[in-house]
C-alpha cells in the first residue's frame, strides 16, 4: 500500500482501526489530543464507536466495559490523564481485560507543560495503580511504529488478556513520517466467548471481576497473574540493536531519545568511537538478559532519557553488578538533547 505522510498520533488511530478496534473512549489533553481527533473522525466514518468521556477516569472505565463485552477498544492520554486512569488500569489488570492505552507523554509533575518528556515511565511500566500487576508496554520511536506497535498492542492485549500501553512522547506523537499501513485485519473475537460477557446465552454465565474475598483465593489469582507476566517476559521481549557487535560503549534509550542516540552513534563512529545503540521496544517485558549480556562485554552503558532517570533503574537491576558501569544523562521539562550534547557526554565517559 502507498505510504502516507502522517502524524504519529493519527497513525495510532488508523493502525487501531485496521487492527479491528471497535471503540475509542477518550478525553482531550495535549499532546495526545490528535489521537482523539483522529478517532472522532475515523471511528464513526467506518461505523465504529467514538465517545468523548466526561473524564479520564470514565474513559478507561468505558474501556473496561467494552473490553468486557469482547471487543477491541482503546483510549489515549498523557501524563496527568494517565494518572487519573490508573484506577481503571488496576481494575482492568485485575479483571484481566485487554485494553490498549496510548500515553503520549508530556512534562510533569503536576500540570508541567505540553513538551515531550519520558517521565511517565515509572507510572506506566511499574504499574502505577494499586496491586500486584504489570502492563505490557511498547515504545515506538517513529511513525511506522506508531501504527505497527498499536496493532501489536491489540494482539498482545488479546493474547494475554491484559492492558497494554503504547508509550510514546509528544515528539513522536507530533512528528509526521511516511507510514505504510497494512490491509484491514479480520479479527475473530469468538474465542473471547470463554470469558467475555456478550449479552447472549453462550456467555451468560461469565463473570468479570477483580474481587476475591478469601485471602487464599486472591493469592491464587495473584499467582496466576505473576505466571502470566513471567510468560510475557519469556515470549514478548522486543528490542533494536544498532552497531552493537563491536561496540565499546552502549547508548540506550527509547522513543525520541533513541533517534537522537542513533545519530549520536553515527557521529561518534566518524570520530572513531565504537559506540552502539540498544533500544528497548518493550519496556515491560524489559530486555534484562540482553542488558546483562552486553554489560559483560562493554565497559560503559549510557542511559539517556527525557526524565530524572527512570528506565536507568531497570538497566541497573538488569546488569546486576556486571562489569559495565551505568551512566545516566537526562533532560527534563521538554528539552530534547542534541546529538552534539550526547557526543560530548559519551566522550566524557570514554575519555574520562
Amino acid at each position, binding site marked *: 500500500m502507498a505510504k*502516507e*505522510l502522517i502524524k504519529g498520533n493519527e497513525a495510532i488511530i*488508523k493502525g487501531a*482501526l485496521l487492527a479491528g478496534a471497535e*471503540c475509542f*473512549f477518550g478525553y482531550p489533553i495535549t*499532546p495526545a489530543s490528535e489521537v482523539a481527533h483522529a478517532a472522532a473522525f*475515523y471511528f464513526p*466514518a467506518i*461505523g465504529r*464507536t467514538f*465517545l468523548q*468521556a*466526561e*473524564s479520564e*477516569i*470514565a474513559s478507561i*472505565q*468505558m*474501556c*473496561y*466495559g*467494552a*473490553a*468486557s*463485552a*469482547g*471487543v477491541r*477498544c482503546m483510549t489515549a492520554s498523557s501524563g496527568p490523564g494517565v494518572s487519573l486512569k490508573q484506577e481503571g488500569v488496576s*481494575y482492568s489488570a485485575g*479483571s484481566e481485560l485487554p485494553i490498549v492505552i496510548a500515553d503520549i507523554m508530556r512534562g510533569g509533575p503536576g500540570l508541567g*507543560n505540553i*513538551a515531550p518528556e519520558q517521565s511517565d515511565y515509572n507510572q506506566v511500566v511499574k504499574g502505577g495503580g494499586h496491586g500486584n500487576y504489570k502492563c505490557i508496554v511498547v515504545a515506538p520511536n517513529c511513525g511506522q511504529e506508531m501504527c505497527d506497535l498499536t496493532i501489536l498492542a491489540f494482539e498482545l492485549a488479546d493474547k494475554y488478556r491484559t492492558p497494554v500501553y503504547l508509550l510514546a512522547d509528544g*515528539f513522536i506523537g507530533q*512528528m*509526521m513520517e*511516511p507510514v505504510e*499501513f497494512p*490491509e*484491514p485485519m479480520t479479527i475473530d473475537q469468538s474465542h473471547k466467548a470463554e470469558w467475555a460477557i456478550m*449479552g*447472549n*446465552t453462550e*456467555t*451468560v454465565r*461469565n*463473570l*468479570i*471481576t*477483580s474481587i476475591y474475598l478469601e485471602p487464599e483465593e486472591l493469592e491464587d489469582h495473584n499467582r496466576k497473574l505473576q505466571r502470566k507476566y513471567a510468560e510475557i517476559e519469556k515470549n514478548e521481549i522486543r528490542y533494536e540493536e544498532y552497531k552493537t557487535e563491536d561496540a565499546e560503549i552502549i547508548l540506550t534509550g527509547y522513543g525520541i531519545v533513541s*533517534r*537522537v*542516540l*542513533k*545519530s*549520536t552513534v553515527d557521529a561518534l563512529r566518524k570520530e572513531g568511537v565504537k559506540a552502539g545503540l540498544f533500544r528497548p521496544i518493550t519496556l515491560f517485558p524489559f530486555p534484562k538478559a540482553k542488558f546483562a549480556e552486553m554489560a559483560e562485554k562493554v565497559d560503559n552503558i549510557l542511559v539517556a532519557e527525557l526524565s530524572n532517570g527512570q528506565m536507568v533503574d531497570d538497566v541497573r537491576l538488569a546488569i546486576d553488578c556486571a562489569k559495565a558501569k551505568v551512566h545516566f544523562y537526562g533532560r527534563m*521539562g*521538554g528539552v*530534547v538533547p542534541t*546529538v552534539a550534547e550526547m557526543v560530548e557526554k559519551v566522550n566524557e565517559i570514554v575519555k574520562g
Partner: protein
Amino acid sequence: MAKDILRKPGGFMDTFVYKPGHDKKNTHYCPGCGHGILHKLIAEALEDLGVADRTIMISPVGCSVFVYYYFATGNIQVAHGRAPAVATGLKRANPDSIVISYQGDGDLAAIGGNNILQAANRGENITVFFVNNAIYGMTGGQMAPTTLVGQKTMTSPYGRSVENEGHPIKIVELLNALESPAYLERTTLEDSKNIAKTRKAVRKAIQCQIDGKGFSLVEVLAMCPSQWRVSPVESKKWITDNMVPYFTPGVKRDVIDEREGYYPERPEIGSETILELLGLRKEKLFRDRSMSDVPEKYRNPQIKVAGFGGQGVLLLGQTLAEAGMRYGWNVSWIPSYGPEMRGGTANCQVNISEGPIGSPVVDFPTILVALNKPSLDKFEESVQPGGIIFYNTSMIDRKPARTDVEVIGVPFSEIADELGNLRFANMVVVGSILAKTKLIEMDIVKDALAEVIHHKKFIEPNIVAIERGASAV
C-alpha cells in the same frame, strides 16, 4: 399474566455458585435488607420480560458488591462509582445487550456523582437501580450524600449538619434537570403498596431500555436496619417517617411514550471501503528517483522553516516532506513544539534523506527559511557551513551576516500579496526552494499539494504561487 405460584424467580441463579462458603442459596444481606427485596423484583422482571440471557448486571462497590452472586445474567464487578461509565462501554460495544447498573448511594451519589450525571445526560440506553438507604452499609455505617439532616452515622456522630455537610442530595430531582433521561422515578420499600409500585417501576425501567428509549433510573428508598440500628420491621417505619418526607416518591420524568426507539446499527463495511474511508486508497504520484541529479550540496537536506504563526510555516514544511516522500526517500516533519513555541514564532523541522533518518531534530539546518526577522536572528548562526538561507526581504530589513553560506533574499510576502493573498507566501518559498535546489520536480510538488491542502479551491492559486516563487530565484 398472573402466576399461580410465587417462588424464587428465574432471573436468579438456581445455586449461587460464585458465593463462597457452604450457603449457596441465601443472600449475604442482613435480615430485613432492602437490597434483597429489590433483587427479587429485578430477578422477576428479567424472567418475565425474557431478557435475562442478554442482560449484564453491574455489581458496584458497597453492600451490593456481590450482586453477581445472584443474577442469572452476565455479571461484571466494577470500581466504586464507575458503573455508569462501564455500562456505557458495555452498551456501546454491544447495543443488543441489556445493561443494568445497580448502585448504592455512596457509589452513585458521592464518588460516582459525575459518572451518573454524564451517563444520564448522554441519554445512555441503560437502566440504573439506585438504592438509597441514607447510609454506607458495607464499610460500617458512615455518612452518605443522602444521609438525612440530623442523622447520626459513624462519620457524622453528632448528626449530619447543614452547615458542615449540606443537605442530602436528591438524585432524581437533580437528573430531572437534564433533557436526556427518559424515565426517572423514586419509589420506596416501606410497605406492600409501595413495593408493588417499585415492582412496576423496575419493569418499566427495563422495558424502556428494551424499547431503545434511553436512560432510565429508579431511586429506591430502602431499609438498612443494621446500620440504622432498628429492627427490620421498625425500619419500614423509619423510611416512612424520615426518608419519605424529604425524598418525595413519584414519577419525576416519563417521556417514554413520546420517544421513538433508537437502535444503533453497526454497518458491515468491506475492506476496500474501510481503506477508502481511512484515506488510504488515494491515487498519488510516486516516482523512484535517486538524488544523483540534485547538486551535491543540496542533497539530504535538513530544513528549518521559521516565521510568525499564520505564515503557513507548518504547511510549507509538510509540502516539502510530502513531495520528498513521493520519491521513496525518507522524510520527517516536526512542528515547533515545546519551549520553542514561546514568543509567537512557529517553526518546523524537515528531513529529506536517501538514507535512514536518525534524529529527526534539526538543530543545525542545511536549509533555513526565515520568514521574519526574529527567525533569522534566532537561527542564522545554526545553519551549517555551506548551507543556504532563504530569507523574506519583505519583512527582514537586514542581510544575513554569514559569509560561509548561500544567501537568497526573496520578497516572499510581497509576491504573495501581488497574487492576492499574503497566505500564499509559504508556497512562494516552496517554489524558490525547488527551483534553487532541483530537489523536487514541479509535477510531484503539485501532486503533493493535493494531499496537504484540504480545500480544493486553494490548490490552483497555490500552484501559481509556487511557479512565481520558482521564477523569483
